[in-house]
């Protein structure tokens, strides 16, 4: 076997006092060999990014390595001075990040940012740098590289920005590329393209790639070897096939089991059930820009003539990529956004026409669960107050509202004592349960879940999905589930509407959408789901 290019031995990284554990990375040992893709997988807080950050000298201020070594080229990286680190970074080890928009300088043209990499290491003349920038952009497959080189980051799409980041990382032909969740912020179809690009470049340049991710689907697509981390320790390591097909450690098994399966079960069509929500001809356009004289205003048709019906006790999924208008539909339904035209009939009332007290009254029966469990709870209110506020606003006495809050907390499997605590004392999954309890407090008949599980780790995600399914059954709720994740949609939805550019391109029972998609767009979406081929192969 070849010698490893990077070898991490017994690395220990200490967290500041008062953190939930003593070591971010606890006695971790692994090797990265040339020409391979090593995936480091783990849930949030598992310490999966920490060893890579340590190798780059990018640890946060209060976090420091206290033991072990990181050997690169015969020297211990942890002992290098800052000047020596600067020479190493970019030149020998390069890194790409999760959010290309914040990793690129918004005020600099793309070519200047790439040229800066050479400049930082004192290489090439300015003219050569510009030429090399174009070459690199061509190599990472950006359409029209000449034009892209002159563009500012905000003029490029998310996928293109990530390609620019990759071009910058490749500029000095590094021996190691560290990719920290590089596709998490991207749509599935773009993600598939970027993964393919990384794979191709790795083969072409013979680099070693350390790929950090939380997504087992991505692992199945790209990994040669896998290391699974939990609480700062590597619990299992091996080749991709070994780990994915035959996981040995309990935690790995649990993680893999928690991934929603792609196959949707055939469900009974909701025959004879009464529709509770009927949406007809819903339209919403955004107009941006349009100065006094020169520029033409940019008109975006976010919701374009959307028709939907939702029956009692049914779960309707709205899936689509970012910018497809799926969230706008949800917001128009609850009137957080005023639709331009169309009717939203909720139990006889047209939500789109109501205002004032009538709207407040009607909103009692349609509530929402939000995406971000950290932003959706007021950090300065206690949990009891957060849940009781709704009923109190509708005239329920404080005592009764709090008593109901306790019952709701029990309903979502939280301790009743939670009412006297602040949101920051809870984990992401628990916060999302509080959000669900708040939505249920007004005894709604329809709940809109807008990317309600997207911010959660897979294992937590599975629990919250189970809870939602269970509550739906017990309380006879109708659910509109808005998501970008087709796996999640397959698991929970009875029917699915696929949206693209503001239009519903396909709608039907979930199993029909997955097994026999009618529109080209749906087919592309389904094919792009990471890990799908492996799952199909496993299913035979």
């Amino acid at each position, binding site marked *: 076997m070849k010698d490893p290019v990077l070898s991490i031995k017994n690395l220990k990284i200490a967290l500041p006092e008062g953190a939930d554990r003593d070591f971010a990375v606890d006695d971790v040992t692994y090797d990265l060999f040339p020409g391979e893709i090593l995936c480091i997988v783990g849930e949030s807080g598992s310490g999966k990014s920490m060893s890579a950050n340590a190798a780059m000298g990018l640890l946060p*201020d*209060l976090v420091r390595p206290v033991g072990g070594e990181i050997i690169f080229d015969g020297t211990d990286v942890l002992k290098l001075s800052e000047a020596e680190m600067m020479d190493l970074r970019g030149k020998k080890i390069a890194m790409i990040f999760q959010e290309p928009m914040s990793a690129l300088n918004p005020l600099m043209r793309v070519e200047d940012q790439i040229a800066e990499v050479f400049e930082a290491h004192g290489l090439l003349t300015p003219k050569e740098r510009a030429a090399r920038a174009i070459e690199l952009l061509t190599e990472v497959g950006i359409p029209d590289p000449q034009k892209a080189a002159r563009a500012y980051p905000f003029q490029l799409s998310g996928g293109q920005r990530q390609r620019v980041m990759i071009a910058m990382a490749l500029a000095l032909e590094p021996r190691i590329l560290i990719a920290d969740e590089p596709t998490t912020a991207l749509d599935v179809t773009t993600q598939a393209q970027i993964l393919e690009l990384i794979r191709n470049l790795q083969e072409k340049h013979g680099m070693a790639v350390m790929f950090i991710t939380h997504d087992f689907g991505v692992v199945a697509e790209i990994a040669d070897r896998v290391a699974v981390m939990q609480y700062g320790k590597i619990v299992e390591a091996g080749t991709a096939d070994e780990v994915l097909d035959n996981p040995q450690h309990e935690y790995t098994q649990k993680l893999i089991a928690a991934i929603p399966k792609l196959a949707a079960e055939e469900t009974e069509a909701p025959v004879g059930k009464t529709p509770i929500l009927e949406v007809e001809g819903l339209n919403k356009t955004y107009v941006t820009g349009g100065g006094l004289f020169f520029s033409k205003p940019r008109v975006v048709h976010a919701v374009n003539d959307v028709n939907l019906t939702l029956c009692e006790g049914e779960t309707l999924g709205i899936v689509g990529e970012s910018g497809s208008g799926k969230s706008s539909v949800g917001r128009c339904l*609850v009137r*957080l956004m005023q639709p331009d035209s169309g009717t939203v009939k909720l139990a006889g009332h047209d939500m789109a026409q109501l205002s004032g007290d009538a709207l*407040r*009254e009607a*909103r*009692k029966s349609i*509530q*929402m669960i*939000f*995406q*971000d469990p950290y*932003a*959706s*709870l*007021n*950090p*300065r*209110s206690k949990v009891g107050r*957060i849940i009781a*506020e*709704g009923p109190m*606003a*509708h005239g329920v006495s404080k005592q009764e509202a709090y008593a109901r809050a306790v019952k709701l907390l029990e309903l979502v499997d939280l301790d009743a004592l939670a009412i006297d605590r602040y949101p920051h004392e809870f984990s992401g999954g628990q916060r999302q349960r509080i*959000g669900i309890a*708040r939505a249920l*407090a*007004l005894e709604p008949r329809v709940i809109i879940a807008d990317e309600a599980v997207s911010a959660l780790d897979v294992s937590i995600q599975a629990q919250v999905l189970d809870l939602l399914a269970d509550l739906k059954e017990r309380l006879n709720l109708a659910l509109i589930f808005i998501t970008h994740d087709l796996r999640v949609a397959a698991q929970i939805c009875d029917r699915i509407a696929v949206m693209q550019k503001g239009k519903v391109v396909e709608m039907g029972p979930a199993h029909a959408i997955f097994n026999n998609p009618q529109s080209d767009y749906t087919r592309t979406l389904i094919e792009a789901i990471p890990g799908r081929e492996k799952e199909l192969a496993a299913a035979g």
Partner: protein
Amino acid sequence: MADFWKRFSRNRGAVIGLAILAIVVLVAILAPLLFPQSPWRMVQRPFLPPFAMDQYPLGTDALGRNVISGLAYGAQVSLLVGLVSTVAALLIGIPIGALAGYFGGWADDALMRFTEFFQTVPSFALAIVLVAIFEPSIQSIIAAIAIVSWPPVARLVRGEVLSLRSREYVEAAILSGQTSLTIILRQVLPNTISPIIVLASLMVATAILLESSLSFLGLGDPNLMSWGYMIGAARTVIRQAWWLSFFPGVAILLTVLALNLIGEGLNDALNPRLARRGK
């Protein structure tokens, strides 16, 4: 709370500032006990230099009044004006900023143009005019300072509210049927409190400076001894009696410095993520 104090005390300057301010507050409260006689009363020969007599450690002024007694009573005036005018400015600025930020549209336009009207007039000139119109008294000085210093509060609160308004918990509150007033009071404003506290601590310092400047120009309350008045009265004799303007000047400097240091410490303690990185 303990956590807050830990972060605050990490900034050494802030702790020093707090100590200085504590001394000033103590002196202001104890002034009537330490110096039972009125600071206006003539107690010795004029121009007694400092440290000449134990009874009058900082000397006497042109009329033979005790300087240290004047400083102690002046502390009362400075702190009173600083605090009350800041509270008054907050009471004007917070509602205007919150309404403008929350409702947006024409309400925002109207309220912000109104705010800009006050911002474009040089604040000290406006304060002079206001005090001159209303006759100098402690009430009119406080009112004038409040009127010239609320616009920054309104702009700060508006900015904070604008960013908080689109938070998911505010949307959840709208969906749960709460009225706009409840949402502003319960969901939005409590989350703007940290930057307001920091700004307020700096505004107290500015208010003390403004009051001193007004008294220096002879627009102070004629019945109250204040630091600005003492400097103003001493300016004609600055070459014979340096201590008459020096000690009140130092008092103003230390108090304003203390408030600024505290403001910075509060900023570090309330916005831990923005705190300057520890070396």
